């Protein structure tokens, strides 16, 4: 998937992936896509909840070898 910015939140724990994502989203424009890498298993539910509450769209969630990849489109 195409993306405009990448955030490496691997090794970080709650709530840092969300806080870093919020910051990274502030640096892209509406409609652009942020790719997020995380190793926090809690971040799967957290990014879904973050998207739902902020109106940013979670395009996809994937897991491979304990690593999670999210694509989020800015509102």
């Amino acid at each position, binding site marked *: 998937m195409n993306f405009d910015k990448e955030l490496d939140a691997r*090794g*970080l*724990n*709650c*709530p*840092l992936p*969300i*806080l870093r994502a*919020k910051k990274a989203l502030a640096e892209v424009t509406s409609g652009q896509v942020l790719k997020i890498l995380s*190793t*926090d298993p809690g971040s799967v539910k957290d990014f879904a909840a*973050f998207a739902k*509450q*902020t109106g940013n769209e979670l395009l996809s969630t994937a897991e491979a070898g304990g690593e999670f990849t999210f694509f989020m489109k800015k509102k």
Partner: protein
Amino acid sequence: METKKMAIIATKGTLDWAYPPYILASTAAALGYETQIFFTFYGLQLLRKDLSVLKVSPLGNPGMPMKMPFGPKWFKDINWNMPNAIQAIIPGYESVATALMKQTIANNGVASIPDLREMCQEAEVKFIACQMTVELFGFEHSDFIDGVEYGGAATFFEFAGETDICLFI
């Protein structure tokens, strides 16, 4: 949609209990909540310029796992809990427990309290210190970080009365 609001009363002044208010406030702010923390009694310690005053005590805290943050897995898995009477007579026990806790926090990619507090400030979480307890404990405003407002119970209610979430920690 109207902006959601959250108010927290922070009353604990230890390293472990510094986490819930700062984690929830920074996350709420990231979710778009207008957020305020009212610091009172021992919670005032969370506003100190020097956060090294925050310690954790295993004494009288049976819920706290006492595990080492280094060494092989079998060693890390040992629980070093010991009777209160023994903990109480070991000099520096609290400082050692605090150092080990900080190491565990860093090993797990959990943010430090100074970092979380700074993220709250960046996200414009409002900090209000209870003026009555500031005086009661003999603190000076210069003991605390800049940007703190000072007020009383009525100040808290002014905002808390309009919130969607209101927590006492």
